[in-house]
């Protein structure tokens, strides 16, 4: 979508005639959402926008501004209405003797807003991060050291002539024998590392490393005594290990940036650089793995995240956010993101063809002669259904245009029959169709942009894979996981269930649904006659079966979905007790009646007991296009850039490409889309893609 957004810009004055071919009835892929019974929002999973998603926010801010300029500002509201800041996070740690310990973190708001232009001259650099980290440690040191008297910050060594003095001064501090010397040394180091003119050389790094060594000792002492703050010490421990690793590995100087360590598994790398066992098991790290779904084949015993991208993501997350640490969407991602994008792009003249599923990307029969590039010759689609006239995909809910959870069969030819036969246009395993469409290069299109999920590529790019080893290794090495999610609507708020705020999003909780989020703010957007108090979203990875399902296995999604339902019910009966003790009745069972049933809004007709869960929402994201891309160690070198020139008239986009930010997220997808647009028309400039050149 980001690529289409760029290519359809008014600045291009309609130079490109763009048609979007979309499987099923809605845009958004993994990010699509729909409105179901009682207008309730039904998501693929839990989506949060982190405060550093600059490219994504920039696009959405432009989109909202464009609609507003056309006089339709009220339709979707200002972007500030669509996203609300969130600075509180809760993480859980499995306690040694069973049960959980909870850790709340409040991230201070920071200046600016995501998507703002970067300050003049700002560059992303590892020394900058290290300076920040030393600053933090210094603050920590001064905060927690009783005898921290007389440690005013040494006046900053700004003049270039003083730099040499500062380095010499550091050398004299030597082994940082006292806490005072350490605090002072950290201040100097932070200043030096943060200054562009500083001689970033080995003696400075040696000082930094010595400081780290001393910090580790100091940390050990703290940790022994201070169990109350063990989580903080664990994070400090991991930070320290990262800094040591960056110094020792020469990463600071490496032109590959953090890719230099991307062959390492994140926890192994931290371990090799001195992180303690307890820090490696800390909720912070588990939260990172949970949020990135970094488990091979969804197996919680095989955590696998690459160190480079893990660190890049963490640095961006903690040091790169603006405004708030994260941002919650007012309603479903489809409603807040894809509906306004659809509306704005439709007005720009982009054509949308729904119910078109790409089935083959055709190349010429023979490989190109030497010196020439291969190209896409045909694009074959299943026409899943024929529409009566052009399809209007949005429906109004609570006064705003939204995507429905089901297609509008009344707009489809023979729609009643399709509905009765239960055609599922989003199931990979449901191949029923109304016809076929073949587009030919030169006649029907000049350029193709492949915007599917990487899981789909093997199914539609057989001709490319047969010829192209890089694409083959990409489909093998860029791994994805399935995910599972469920949502409940509650007639009581979480406080009355025994959960103490203010955190809305919680991570590193019990498997299988380790991440959940309280979403009371979306309920008013829905159309209940009797409004529930809140809605809670759960999500997690979903382990794959040992054997992948056959293409003809039409019942596969339903079976996996039923599994998710069973697990969700068990989860509510089991681990939820830890956090919502009041959700359990005197008989010790989950009080199923607190679930809001849209059918029985008036309550009397509702079923009771565990079956009441059937009125809630759950799904298994097993479709190849719904699978979530992870960044396993070493996988970065198998990603292919949208800028890649192997195919003359084809480029790719998605969070699975070499977008510069190799994480399955909105920002990665948007960056990839911007790159794809650049590949096709040279715009936007690569320098304008924020953090594309991040180390």
């Amino acid at each position, binding site marked *: 979508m980001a690529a289409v957004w760029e290519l359809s810009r008014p600045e291009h004055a309609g130079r490109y005639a763009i048609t979007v071919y979309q499987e099923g009835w809605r845009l958004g892929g993994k990010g699509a959402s729909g409105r179901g019974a009682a207008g309730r929002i039904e998501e693929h999973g839990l989506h949060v926008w982190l405060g550093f998603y600059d490219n994504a926010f920039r696009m959405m801010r432009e989109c909202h501004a464009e609609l507003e300029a056309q006089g339709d500002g009220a339709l979707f509201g200002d972007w500030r209405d669509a996203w609300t800041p969130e600075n509180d996070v809760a993480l859980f740690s499995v306690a040694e003797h069973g049960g959980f310990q909870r850790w709340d973190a409040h991230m201070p708001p920071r200046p600016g807003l995501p998507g703002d232009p970067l300050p003049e001259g700002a560059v992303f650099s590892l020394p900058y991060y290290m300076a920040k980290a030393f600053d933090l440690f210094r603050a920590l040191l001064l905060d927690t050291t009783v005898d921290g008297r007389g440690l005013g910050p040494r006046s900053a060594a700004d003049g270039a002539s003083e730099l040499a003095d500062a380095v010499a001064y550091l050398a004299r501090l030597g*082994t940082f024998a006292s806490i005072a010397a350490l605090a002072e040394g950290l201040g100097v180091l932070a200043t030096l590392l943060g200054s562009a003119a500083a001689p970033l050389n080995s003696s400075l790094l*040696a000082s930094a*490393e*010595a400081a*780290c*060594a*001393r910090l*580790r000792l100091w940390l*050990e002492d703290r940790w022994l005594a201070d169990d109350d703050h063990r989580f903080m010490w664990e994070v400090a421990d991991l930070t320290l290990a990262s800094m*040591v*690793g960056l110094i*020792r*590995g020469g990463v600071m100087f490496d032109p590959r940036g953090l890719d230099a360590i991307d*062959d*390492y*598994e994140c926890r*192994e790398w931290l371990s*090799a*650089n*001195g992180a303690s066992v307890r820090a490696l098991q800390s909720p912070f790290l588990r939260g990172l793995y949970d949020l990135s779904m970094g488990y091979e084949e969804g197996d919680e015993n095989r955590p696998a995240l690459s160190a480079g991208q893990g660190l890049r993501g963490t640095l961006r997350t903690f040091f790169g956010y603006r405004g708030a640490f994260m941002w919650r969407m007012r309603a479903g991602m489809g409603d807040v993101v894809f509906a306004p994008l659809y509306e704005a792009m439709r007005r720009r003249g982009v054509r949308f063809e729904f119910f078109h599923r790409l089935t083959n990307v055709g190349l010429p029969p023979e490989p190109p002669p030497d010196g020439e590039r291969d190209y896409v010759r045909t694009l074959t689609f299943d026409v899943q259904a024929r529409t009566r006239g052009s399809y209007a995909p949005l429906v109004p809910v609570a006064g705003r245009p939204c995507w429905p959870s089901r297609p509008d069969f009344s707009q489809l030819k023979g729609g009643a029959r399709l509905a009765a036969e239960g055609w599922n246009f989003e199931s990979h395993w449901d191949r029923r169709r109304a016809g076929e469409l073949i587009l030919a290069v030169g006649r029907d299109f000049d350029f193709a942009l492949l915007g599917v999920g990487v899981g789909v590529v093997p199914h539609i790019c057989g001709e490319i894979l047969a010829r192209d080893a890089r694409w083959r290794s990409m489909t093998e090495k860029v791994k994805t996981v399935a995910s599972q999610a469920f949502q409940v609507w509650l007639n009581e708020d979480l406080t009355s269930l025994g959960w103490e705020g203010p955190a809305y999003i919680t991570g590193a909780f019990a498997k299988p649904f380790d991440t959940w989020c309280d979403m009371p703010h979306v309920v008013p957007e829905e159309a209940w006659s009797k409004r529930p108090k809140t809605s809670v979203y759960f999500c997690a990875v979903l382990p794959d079966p040992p054997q992948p399902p056959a293409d003809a296995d039409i019942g596969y999604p339903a079976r996996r979905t039923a599994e998710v339902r069973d697990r969700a019910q068990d989860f509510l009966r089991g681990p939820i007790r830890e956090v919502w003790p009041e959700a359990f009745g005197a008989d010790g069972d989950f009080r199923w009646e607190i679930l809001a049933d849209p059918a029985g809004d008036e309550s009397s007709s509702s079923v009771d007991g565990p079956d009441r869960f059937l009125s809630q929402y759950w799904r298994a994201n097993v479709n190849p296009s719904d699978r979530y891309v992870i960044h396993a*160690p*070493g996988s970065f070198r198998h990603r292919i850039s949208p800028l890649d020139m192997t195919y003359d008239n084809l480029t790719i986009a998605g969070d699975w490409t070499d977008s510069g930010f190799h994480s399955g997220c909105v920002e990665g997808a948007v960056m990839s889309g911007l790159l794809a647009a650049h590949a096709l028309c040279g715009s936007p400039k690569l320098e304008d893609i924020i953090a594309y050149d991040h180390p």
Partner: protein
Amino acid sequence: MTAAAALARPTAAAPPDAMAATMATYGRATRLELERYLGSQTPAPYLDELLADYPSRGGKMLRPAICIANARAFGGSLEAAVRCAAAIEILHNGLLIHDDIQDGSELRRGRPTLHALHGTPLAINAGDAMMFTALRPLIDALRPLGGEVAAQVLDVSLTMARETAEGQALELGWRDSNVTALNEADYLRMALKKTAWMGMIWPAQLGLVLGSGGRGDPESVVRFGYFLGVAFQIEDDLRNLSVDPGYGKEMNGDLYEAKRTLMLIHVRQACADEERVRLDAFLGQPREERSADDVLWLAELMTRLGSIDHARAVAAAMAGAASHEFSLAYGGLAASEDLDFIAGLVPWIFARP
């Protein structure tokens, strides 16, 4: 000073007796494996005996020990590491046979060289056979680790082979063309390629790749191995000039062979013009025409002009650099006896028997 300090229990260089013990342990394990691979099912006349000869003469088993210690320090098992070590040792012995032929050496570890015993053609043949045999244990060690690791091993091995060949060619080329105007950089380059790469860097790299399961960076140990190898080579050259050069080598053998050592480079730069004339004439002679008088004169000149002391100081400085590089390359690993062993290689250069 810095990296090691970050560990809760700092790595301490193992003392010489511990070094000897570790080397003996790892050497024994390697030798068992080596004999298993060199022993053939069907007897091969003119070959079996030759293959078994050099390995049976003993040797310090330095390379295998470096490989095994690295593999274990990086988290690998002894079993796979021993196979790898056997491969290294077999290849090394194969190369020794060829070296001796190329150098025209007469003694190896106190006994006549293989070609002196059996003639050059059979010796070349045996050397070839050993180099190919070396692949077997290597492949066996790599098989369970998969293609990526194997590719890395092949990569570092090809680099080693090229570097070693270049080093050998350099030294022979200098000698054959009587290249005299060499400087210290030339010497260091040669020591890097001829000694360090195969003797220190490559075994360490194999161990690292094997032990880390392909997740370590083989380049990270290059500098350590290099400085270790250079210090080792200089010390070796120094010992050759001493009364008891060890390993059954002839005293001042390097002078007879006009080997381009650090001392030779230094003495040629430091001596007076007329001495340089005599020296260059000496270097220009065929080996068998070089007189004992000239050799003694040269040895004495090296002492008088401080070439020996200079080389000794350089060796110590290189060892210091090796220690520094050790802390950079291995600083992140958990303390272990194997790490102590690797650290202990540096002082062991001078303390070894």
